[in-house]
């Protein structure tokens, strides 16, 4: 029996010890009428070899297109050592470190992770992960409401340059809790928050202001001004950041005069493959003063009976298994294995390595923009400083272009025409350090072809 070790003899011995006539008898407390008759939709068992063949066929069907899509999930080089270690059974097949003494490996690693993320974001404390960047933002909004006792409005200000999915997820998650979101427009031509619309809120009761840096368009916001404005207006500040960008850019802990209050984001750029969308992990760091409002697991260093250093889950009184309906969040299982990958990844790359990856990604994106905007009719939507994404405007329908690119085995970017209709045929592109100059040329040639073709056809 696949994965079941019982021999016939053992089954008999065990039933005898139980005093049950058959395995079926073990289910005699279940009303007979309820017992399953058949499971028609489940196919017959496959051997490992057969399922391997099936999965390989499925994978090959999708192939390995050349990717220029970012929008919250980025293709980076991952050292071979990372997943070789992550998939070691001792990490892979352990669970939440409830028995600290038997889980020092996981616990120490998480403590190291907390240390790294705190330093990277310029904050004092970090939790041990949330599900993903989007849900981390939702949790941050809820946390801000808890942390900011003086604000009664539960009103969160977000720029429309925030990743739209992050806003959708936040809306869905806080839906039952009377939070409201005020969405502020961006400056056209610049693609950054229209500051005047923020200033128009002066004097209102705002619980928190969310800033994404770099924003969804890849542009850099004036985070210092926004942070200071928010604090001056008694709102907390929640930063949404790409952790890789922090190798180059000022950490949220240093934005404005006193830094932000909560930092969240998706840790995927650190050692986590694109993997069709997940598992990734959400991170969250904050100031010490808010630590008791933070959701998620937190690991602390302590000592054992002999005074020796050790690590353990701490501040559990915030969590659902203790506080139940009054917990900071319902989160229980988080994304430990991905954090394991990220911690190893950060250790292998170091600050210098991450800086170089970030700089190279930025350079490759600049080159890509340069090449693509040479195509007649293709232009940059926004000026200003950017990281490794950019919005292009095309002379033709983006959907058509992306389909044609896919046929050439290129994933060309994200179609923004539904999300931001005012931008017209807008395409969000990204190149990381994994895209060579030759890759950029491949894209440029294909796009030239396609755009010219469509333009001519439309004539």
């Amino acid at each position: 029996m696949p994965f079941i070790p019982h021999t016939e003899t053992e089954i008999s011995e065990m039933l005898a010890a139980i005093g049950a006539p058959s395995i079926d008898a073990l289910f005699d407390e279940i009303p007979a009428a309820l017992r399953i008759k058949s499971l028609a939709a489940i196919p017959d068992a496959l051997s490992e070899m057969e399922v391997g063949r099936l999965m390989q066929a499925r994978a090959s069907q999708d192939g390995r297109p050349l990717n220029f899509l970012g929008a919250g999930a980025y293709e980076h080089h991952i050292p071979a050592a990372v997943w070789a270690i992550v998939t070691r059974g001792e990490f892979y097949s352990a669970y939440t470190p409830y028995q600290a003494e038997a889980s020092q490996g996981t616990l120490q690693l998480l403590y190291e992770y907390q240390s790294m993320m705190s330093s990277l974001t310029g904050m004092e404390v970090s939790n041990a992960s949330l599900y993903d960047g989007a849900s981390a933002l939702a949790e941050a909004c809820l946390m801000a409401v808890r942390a900011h006792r003086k604000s009664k409005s539960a009103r969160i200000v977000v720029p429309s340059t925030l990743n739209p999915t992050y806003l959708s997820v936040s809306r869905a998650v806080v839906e039952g809790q009377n939070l409201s979101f005020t969405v502020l427009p961006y400056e056209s031509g610049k693609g950054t928050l229209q500051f005047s619309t923020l200033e128009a809120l002066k004097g209102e009761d705002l619980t928190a202001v969310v800033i994404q840096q770099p924003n969804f368009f890849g542009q850099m916001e004036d985070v210092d001004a926004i942070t200071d404005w928010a604090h001056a207006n008694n709102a907390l500040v929640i930063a949404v950041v790409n952790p890789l960008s922090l190798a180059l850019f000022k950490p949220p802990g240093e934005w404005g005069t006193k830094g932000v209050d909560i930092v969240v984001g998706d840790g995927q750029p650190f050692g986590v493959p694109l993997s069709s969308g997940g598992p990734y992990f959400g991170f969250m760091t904050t100031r010490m003063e808010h630590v008791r409002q933070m959701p998620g697991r937190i690991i602390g260093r302590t000592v054992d009976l002999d005074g020796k250093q050790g690590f353990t889950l701490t501040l559990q009184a915030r969590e659902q298994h203790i506080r139940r309906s009054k917990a900071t969040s319902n989160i229980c299982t988080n994304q430990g294995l991905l954090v394991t990958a990220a911690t190893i990844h950060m250790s292998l790359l170091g600050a210098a390595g991450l800086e170089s990856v970030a700089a190279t990604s930025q350079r490759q994106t600049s080159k890509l923009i340069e090449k693509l905007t040479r195509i007649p009719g293709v232009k940059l939507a926004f000026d200003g400083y950017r990281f490794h994404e950019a919005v292009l405007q095309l002379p033709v329908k983006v959907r058509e272009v992306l389909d044609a690119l896919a046929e050439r085995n290129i994933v060309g970017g994200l179609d923004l025409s539904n999300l931001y209709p005012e931008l017209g045929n807008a395409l969000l592109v990204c190149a990381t350090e994994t895209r060579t100059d030759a890759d950029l040329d491949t894209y440029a040639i294909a796009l030239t072809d396609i755009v010219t073709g469509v333009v001519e056809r439309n004539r």
Partner: protein
Amino acid sequence: MSHISEPLIFKHSRTGRSAVGQYPQGATAQVPEKFRRRKRAALPEVSELQAVRHFTRLSQLNFSIDTHFYPLGSCTMKYNPRACNAFAMLPEFLGRHPLAPDSVSQGFLACLYELQEMLKDVTGMKGVSLTPMAGAQGEFAGVAMIRAYHKARNDLERTEIIVPDAAHGTNPATATMCGCTVVEIPSLPNGDIDIDALKGALGPKTAGIMLTNPSTLGVFERRIQEVAKLVHDAGGLLYYDGANLNAILGKVRPGDMGFDVIHMNLHKTFSTPHGGGGPGSGAVGVGQRLLPFLPIPTVGKDGDNYRWLDEKDVPQTIGRLSAFMGNAGVLLRAYVYMRMLGREGMHRVAEFSALNANYLLARLKKAGFDAAYPERRASHEFIITMKRQAKELGVNAMDFAKRLLDYGYHAPTTYFPLLVPECLLIEPTETEAKEELDGFVDALIAIQAEAEQDAAKVKGAPYTLPVRRLDDVRAAKQLDLTYGMRSTE
């Protein structure tokens, strides 16, 4: 399992050291002053060998399924087939961008679509969404759908969620997150729900009830049909916490019991790895009434073509719960697992997890341990209580748990569920061999003897692990959450 501690990675760090082969050389960014980072983050500066050695050594400080029997109740620590990992990590799946066009995603979508279909079948539900990223998020989706259902019917007063006292903490926490009020009802001494209390709790404000069946007490709620009728008659819906689905997989389906919505912990019942705390996946299944509210995206099929379904297809959806579509890699592992088990294998899951649990219970009872529900069948797990030992010998459940570690067994879940004093919740799972169970019983018997002869020995446990018992109180009082936070290095 190593007993030798490893210094923090920061201790291996030296300024200027680095694994240079891991990043591109030469690029420097021109960052305007106002955006520029002034001081590099305090990440470790180590060589590749140092990182590999450090984390390899850390790994050896863990108990895990791959190295130890790990009967952690309610967590279903069964074997995670290596094939699931291998096939979910094929480079094409790993390299696929979540927003890549459907035309280059048909293979991936086919797996997800079939997974939805299989999960519908094993739960008896009408629709499935795979997007929740863990059990608790699945619960959230479930309760949010119940709320949306009542709202859509303009039944706006229904804001109470009934939760038995035995429920997992995520249940009440979820209800709160969904803006509901929690109404707790007690369990009877035999482990069943107190039907009278339930009747008392039901009313026009009842949005629904959250149940685990078998409950976290390790017993099957026998009057589930009656419960379902009562709740439905009161206008509420029934939520099934599927964390314990392993107990009934292939034997009975929540849909047939009358539940309207279920979340499944794919990382438990469908054996994707637990990863030291995650990732999990909390796919939700719903009956007819909740179909319109499923979280997006789900996978649909037009002819031979798979595609994502979104707000256009499910206009009443409770929305998105993750930036993309949930923990895709976990879903692929669950899919591989289900295909390897097949129809017959599905039936065997509950059978052999029940056989192992009942055998273990029988042996422990015979050895003189106190079952919390001695008259009941164990489901896939069961509870013993150390109340007597705590009182008579001063050796409590935690002491037994810690001493078990010295014997090479991971401890069962301790002090949960909260209503059984000094309890150990024991879940052996179907993939453990009889001799492991026997060894575990022998260890508990030996510890009992130790407790009788030398209680201090048991209370001082563990002795053979990298650290002895840790001071949790100090951890919470003198917070030390990052390297450098406390000067006492």
